[in-house]
């Protein structure tokens, strides 16, 4: 194949190939030119838009959450700004390595790492997640100086929620937590997804949850130019956020503190209501919890402590636990007897110490009986026989029909989440409650027990307080509420919550007066007399004892059983007797007789509310309830 060519032939052949090469280059470069024309002319609009989308980011500006203050302006929940160290996982190549390096600059505990991991699982991949919260100024400075070493990591100013009163109002105010997947669904269902862009926390319990829509506010936005790392370069335009409304409560923090401390270590609940408005003055569930623990993610140890304690501090006994009302039911039963015409105030029965129904003896507390008992005596001495007979005369339907307007066994509609409805027993209720036909039948003997507040009766302390408020407010019924005003922080405009009564229960003043007079005598000569000895005002009351029938579903240690088997102690009270400003229900779990444990709490609360008197040994107004624990 070897060819021999002259150098001239060789040169001309090479020149041909050089021309071929030149043409080839021209073609290739023309191809590039065509590509540029395509990209820069034909598809210019598309790429222009893409570049603008790259450049401009709409950054949500979360609004300031509304504050919560008590009726006297004492702050119960507020915001404070703190720096957090945020990682955007999508912009970080090796997360663990980055966190390890960060740990050399700022303190990062195992708890921080675990929390970061948990938050990360709950957030979208492009979102930033805090690795550390509440950085000190020094830590911020140290990080800023080295920021360039940490792409995808940045310091952010965030608003945190703070509850200066600590555990005083844990069950009322509730707490905030990071938005989780379930919250996202709720937000979506409310059509608020856009408004929650940039918001990381949401009310999880208490008022923070029920007034979420008021407290949150309207999210603003900033149009900013961002670089490829997502960092702001400059601000282009801004739509300011509208801060959330603040809440002024009906609750009196001072009163709450007195009530809270009166319980001490005991389990129980107290609800105090202003009868003329339905405003809740105090709502205690003991033990309580400190909502500050939840603000930036509760630690596992704290959560275990709250969740696994046999005292169940997270349970809001005031609105969720239903107990048989015991003898506190008697004033309502008495009123039912008068209103239905089955009894007159003067009409007396002879009490032999028991009542026989269906071959069964229903016993009175007092052996040998109370003798001749009229309405007044029946309440003051808490005579069971009077109410056994009355229950039988009224019939279960009669009782249920009379009690229903007072709200017994129904949700009161209070502006707190997680209310339980309890049980107002009736044949209808029993039919629905039980599956087996044998259990569905209502027995006459069951009516007798209901007459003294035992049996199937089960009401929350809130329901009892609400019913008592209606009774002492001449049958004018308000929906109980914790918030008095919703306030627009910008205009100062107030909107009153539940300003109007929801119903007027038709009751005769004479009947009401008879029942109330008997209750006043309870505190003078009856079961409340010891607790209210020497009171500078006249107060009505009624003790009650709820039998602990069953320990089903409880896992108490054996040593505790005896204490936990004791009856629950009730006391309901109102004062002053002629024009009640406060009506309350107190329950002390396993407190025994109402007169011994519940009534003194009621006395302390009323003393404080009417007289401003603090029980001996309690801190003064200025020092109570430190901000954090």
């Amino acid at each position, binding site marked *: 194949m070897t060819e021999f060519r002259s150098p001239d032939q*060789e040169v001309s052949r090479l020149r041909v190939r050089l021309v071929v090469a030149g043409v080839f*280059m021209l073609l290739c470069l023309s191809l*590039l030119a065509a590509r540029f024309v395509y990209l820069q002319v034909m598809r210019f609009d598309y790429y222009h838009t893409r570049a603008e989308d790259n450049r401009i980011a709409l950054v949500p500006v979360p609004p300031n959450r509304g504050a919560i203050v008590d009726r006297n302006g004492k702050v119960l929940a507020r915001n404070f700004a703190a720096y957090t160290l945020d990682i955007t996982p999508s912009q970080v190549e090796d997360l663990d390595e980055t966190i390890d390096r960060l740990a050399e600059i700022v303190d990062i505990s195992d708890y921080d790492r675990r929390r970061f991991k948990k938050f990360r699982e709950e957030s979208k991949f492009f979102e930033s997640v805090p690795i550390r919260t509440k950085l000190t100024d020094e830590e911020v400075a140290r990080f800023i100086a080295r920021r360039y070493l940490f792409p995808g990591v940045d310091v952010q100013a965030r608003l945190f929620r703070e509850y200066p009163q600590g555990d005083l109002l844990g069950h009322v105010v509730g707490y905030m937590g990071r938005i989780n997947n379930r919250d996202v669904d709720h937000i979506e269902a409310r059509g608020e997804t856009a408004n929650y862009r940039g918001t990381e926390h949401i009310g999880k319990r208490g008022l923070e949850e029920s007034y979420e829509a008021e407290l949150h506010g309207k999210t603003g936005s900033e149009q900013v130019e961002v670089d490829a790392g997502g960092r702001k370069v400059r601000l282009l335009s801004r739509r300011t956020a509208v801060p959330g409304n603040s809440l002024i409560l009906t609750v009196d923090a001072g009163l709450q503190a007195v009530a809270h401390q009166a319980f001490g270590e005991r389990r129980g609940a107290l609800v105090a209501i202003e009868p003329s408005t339905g405003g809740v003055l105090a709502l205690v569930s003991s033990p309580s919890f400190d909502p500050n623990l939840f603000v930036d993610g509760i630690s596992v140890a704290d959560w275990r402590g709250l969740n696994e304690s046999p005292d169940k501090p997270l349970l809001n006994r005031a609105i969720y636990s239903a107990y048989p009302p015991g003898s506190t039911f008697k004033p309502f039963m008495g009123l039912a007897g008068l209103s239905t015409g089955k009894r007159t105030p003067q009409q007396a029965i002879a009490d032999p110490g028991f009542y026989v129904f269906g071959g069964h003896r229903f016993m009175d507390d007092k052996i040998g009986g109370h003798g001749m008992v009229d309405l007044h005596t029946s309440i003051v001495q808490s005579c069971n026989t009077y109410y056994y007979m009355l229950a039988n005369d009224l019939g279960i339907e009669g009782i249920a029909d009379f009690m229903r307007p007072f709200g017994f066994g129904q949700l009161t509609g209070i502006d707190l989440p997680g209310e339980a409805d309890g049980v107002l027993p009736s044949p209808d209720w029993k039919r629905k409650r039980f599956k087996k036909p044998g259990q569905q039948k209502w027995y006459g003997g069951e009516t007798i027990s209901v007459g003294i507040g035992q049996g199937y009766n089960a009401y929350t302390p809130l329901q009892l307080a609400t019913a008592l408020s209606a009774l002492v407010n001449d049958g004018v019924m308000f929906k109980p509420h914790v918030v008095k005003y919703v306030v627009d922080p910008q205009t100062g405009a107030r909107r009153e919550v539940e300003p109007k009564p929801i119903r007027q229960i038709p009751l005769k003043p004479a009947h009401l007066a008879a029942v109330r007079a008997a209750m006043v005598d309870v505190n003078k000569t009856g079961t409340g007399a010891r607790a209210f000895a020497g009171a500078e005002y006249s107060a009505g009351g009624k003790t009650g004892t709820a039998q602990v029938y069953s320990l089903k579903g409880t896992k108490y240690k054996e040593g505790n059983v005896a204490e936990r088997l004791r009856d629950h102690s009730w006391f309901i009270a109102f004062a002053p007797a002629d024009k009640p400003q406060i009506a309350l229900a107190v329950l002390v779990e396993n407190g025994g007789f109402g007169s011994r444990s519940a009534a003194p709490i009621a006395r302390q609360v009323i003393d404080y509310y009417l007289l401003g008197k603090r029980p001996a040994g309690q801190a003064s107004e200025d020092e109570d309830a430190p901000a954090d624990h």
Partner: protein
Amino acid sequence: MELRLHPVALIRAILRPIDPPLFLLLTVLLAAALVVMQSASPARMEAQLVNTGVALALMWVTARIPSARLLSLAMPLYVVGVVLLVGVALFGEISKGAQRWLDLGVVRIQPSELMKIAMPLMLAWFFQQREGAIGFVEFVLAGVLLAVPVALIVTQPDLGTSLLVAAAGLYVIFFAGLSWKLIVPLVLVAVVGLGSIVAFGDTLCQPEVDWQVLREYQKHRVCTLLDPTSDPLGKGFHIIQSTIAIGSGGMFGKGWMQGTQTHLSFIPERHTDFIFAVMAEEFGLIGALVLLVVLFMLLLRGLMIAAVAPTLGTRLLAGAITMIFFTYAFVNMGMVSGILPVVGVPLPFISYGGTALVTLCIGVGILMSIQRERALSQS
């Protein structure tokens, strides 16, 4: 050289080795590089100025060396290059998953870079030795000379550089007169191969498909090109963002220092491999076309020098160097504008990077040296 030179004579002496058209075009490109660099990475301006100075000095030095001397360096350079490549294979440092660097104690060198010049030099010298008797055997031998270093570079593995070195050698073989009967089938195979990859890209790019010949990262590069959105935050992100930069530049560009893609860091490697995207974003289609025209004029000048060069060796060398310039430019701009895979090839004369700029300017110096000799032989 006389010591007592008149200033004019001195300037003339300095300018003697310079080819004015080449130098003019090169100056335009280097000036453009500085302008773009100021926008892409102002912090590197000083270094770029130093690089430019050094590269121009070396160009001048190279241009003064007679081309015969240059060709006589071919054999030693080639042998040293191959030995170093073997050294890399045996003792090289591993960086970014590839073994490319050789630490000689004083300097760390990348022998594959050396081969980019040594390869065409070697083959040009080889064909010059066999002038008048170039036949089948010579082409086979040339193929072997080509294949050994290319194979060594492929195994590093560095597909991009091995392709460029192979291309440099193939250009010499092409200009040396390899029969069209062999060229046409080779080109056909290449075209069909690339075509089928594009056509069957979807199936080939499934993760479980093993490509046998190519490494995983090479497969990844090709596949990303076929569908940039499949990997939007990895390599695909580079292509997508550079394409957006070019497209959003429009007809006249966003203006110098005004490129949002550039200044907000959306363009990756914006001072090196992707610097063309910066240019196209800020100076638009007009700027891109001006660059293409200047480059094409420079290439044409190179081909003209090849056409009139005095010896076979210099003709082949000049032709091959010109084609290498073209290949760099085409592969780079093709990659940045999304019609070729992402291979680490800088835009000649524009991209930041001392080694590449020096190599390229030495190439220009060789062209000038060849051109000067022709001028001398004619005079």
